[in-house]
């Protein structure tokens, strides 16, 4: 038994960390988040392709890296540490579905090389639990409205979840931007009544839902890790009442709790990723647990990071709010906590 990454995996981590520090520091991505209309930067996307990130899970035949969930977790964790904007995980998941369904080599090659973006369109309503009309596929057309399609405005095609299976549709022009509080994640609503092609049954989602959960949890881990680092640096130097605030016991215990949550998330994320790759029976439970736990953990860590910074933590100038907002977005997506708890219960047979 061994928890440490393999040599190759450790190399991937260090090269990804270098890449992120060099190409994706928040100073730089801030411009994308604050000013870009679509929250998307083609140059950044091409560099993802160059690094091989876009084909991480895909077969060699389409230019992929044939790697697994552990490697995805490594990349997502590093991207979380710099709070990367953009639809990276969405693109990976959609490509995974297409690869498993088979027969999309041309499109996949274009995805891997960064020339095309395909994302999943799932939500039938903007509000949780709302009973909306389901999206249907019949007579070669997809009909219905999808909400919170990630970066739909930049997508070339949508992989639409309908009650009749997964279908692929060219991205229509009539999208409505759904602006949320997270400047690094952009969404659209799209009304569909368009020709589409059948990709495969809904069961294709099962595995990518597990990978998506682990990937999102890994980004949450990176978010927590970096947020805690920033906070530790701050409390060591900031003084109040004649000493560094990091010397106050209440703040020390708070940070111990932040560390507990970050480290426990780390255990859960990499165990979940290992389960995905090994396809053991506990995979569903492990992935659901990692995502549900990391979502709550990041909410705590990012919220307390702001608290420990005091007023300055609440300013736009400081980076903390990007992490805080991302934590909330991720907690609600890729299987929100509520849904993951049900997944866990179902997996345990409770």
């Amino acid at each position, binding site marked *: 038994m061994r928890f440490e990454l393999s040599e190759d995996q450790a190399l991937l981590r260090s090269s990804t960390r270098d890449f992120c520090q060099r190409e994706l520091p928040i100073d730089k991505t801030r411009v994308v988040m604050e000013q870009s209309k679509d929250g998307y930067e083609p140059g950044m996307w091409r560099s993802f392709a160059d690094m091989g990130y876009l084909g991480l899970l895909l077969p060699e035949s389409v230019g992929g890296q044939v790697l697994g969930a552990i490697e995805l977790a490594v990349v997502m964790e590093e991207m979380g540490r710099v709070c990367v904007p953009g639809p990276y995980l969405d693109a990976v998941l959609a490509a995974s579905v297409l690869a498993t369904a088979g027969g999309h080599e041309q499109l996949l090659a274009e995805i891997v090389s960064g020339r095309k973006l395909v994302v999943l369109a799932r939500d039938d309503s903007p509000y949780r639990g709302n009973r909306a009309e389901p999206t249907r596929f019949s007579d070669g057309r997809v009909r219905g409205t999808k909400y919170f399609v990630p970066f739909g405005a930049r997508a070339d095609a949508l992989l639409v979840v309908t009650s009749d299976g997964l279908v692929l549709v060219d991205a229509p022009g009539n999208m409505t931007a759904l602006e949320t509080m997270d400047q690094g994640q952009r969404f659209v609503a799209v009304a569909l009544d368009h020709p589409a092609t059948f990709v495969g049954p809904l069961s294709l989602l099962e595995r990518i839902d597990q990978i998506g959960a682990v990937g999102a949890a890994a980004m949450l881990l990176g978010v927590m890790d970096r947020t805690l680092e920033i906070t530790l640096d701050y409390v060591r130097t900031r003084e109040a009442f004649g000493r560094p605030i990091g010397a106050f016991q209440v703040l020390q215990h708070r940070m111990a709790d932040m560390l507990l949550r970050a480290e426990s998330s780390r255990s859960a994320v990499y165990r979940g990723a290992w389960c995905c790759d090994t396809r053991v029976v506990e995979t569903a439970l492990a992935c659901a647990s990692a995502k549900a736990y990391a979502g709550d953990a990041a909410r705590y860590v990012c919220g307390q990071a702001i608290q420990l910074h005091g007023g300055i*933590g609440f300013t736009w100038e400081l980076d903390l709010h990007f992490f805080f907002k991302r934590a909330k977005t991720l907690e*609600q997506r890729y299987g929100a906590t509520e849904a993951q708890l049900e997944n866990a219960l179902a997996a345990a047979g409770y």
Partner: protein
Amino acid sequence: MDLQLSPQHLAFREEVRGWLAANADRPWREVLRGSTATEDSLIEARRVWQRKLHGAGYLGMDWPAEWGGRGGGPVEQAILETELIEADAPPILNTLGIGLLGPALIHHGSEEQRRRFIPPMLAAEEIWCQGFSEPGSGSDLASLKASAVLDGDDFILNGQKVWTTFGPWADWIFVLARTDGKDRYGGISFILCKLDTPGITVRPLRQITGESEFGEVFFEDARVPRTNLVGEIGEGWRIAMTVLAYERGAISFTQAVQYGRDLGRLATACKEIGRTGSAVREKLGRLLVENEVMRANGIRTLANFADGKAPGAESSIEKVYWSEFDQRFRETALDLLGPGGQLVRTSPEARDDCDWARQFLWSRAETIFSGSSEVQRNIIAKRVLKLPQDPR
């Protein structure tokens, strides 16, 4: 025990309700969502509303009539605020002037200062901001460094203030400045400065919500007449502390009204989107109960006020309670609503009952400003529980 409003208070409530029915503008949340709303237009709307309230005699409820007040008490003030919340009226513009500086001038200012500053403050002709915190002095406010040095009939101010609410739109600032470097508390004075004084620069400070309600104010050899000193030299800390106690007031009482209103909206929203399971109901139930207990705390404080008892360090309990409740409430709202709750208020699918996303973000500030939760708990431990203090 008697928690009933008196007949006079009930009559006052009827009067306010009648006035609001005739004079209230359209609900503030609709104004906020309006497609033409800008930060400037909202400021103007608040100014207009404040003048309307002032014209009707509803500002400075508990100030002497001589100073434009109504000579009422905290109960009238709480009734007024309650009705304003229920009517979803705009906030007034000069919150800090009327909430903090007014009482400071009435209790500690000179006759001349009152005559000069109170009327334009009430009429929203001079908007005030507060210059207490500094980049290096937040929780440990008494460590502030901005200095005021007497030079003839003027003070010369240097330093930097931060978190000056409405800094960007304000005309004046009331400042705590150090007049004696050696005396931690007794070396602080309370000084009024016009913001267009040469040497004063205001820079807006953008917040997590994207708004710029706060600002930074820089002082570089800014010259302010000595007559703008409130109280005596070295009295600033005492004045500020008295005045901050006002800020807390019977705040649980009015907060509970506001949360109750928003909680009702959340409950309705949950029904509308079909979220009626026991897990959702338990969450709503807990928030409801916690809010009712906050209301009970507020009723108790208000009754004690009315009974002539000044609130002590117990007000720290109320601050911790409502600010931490605010975070739980706003977070739960987003959990229940799902991604739709994260939409900004101008987004096409955003609900129009409340700006849930903004309230969620803003809730993080509640436990920091006006004395962080950590500082409040220190105060409770020291002044209420009288626990042994760290010998340092």
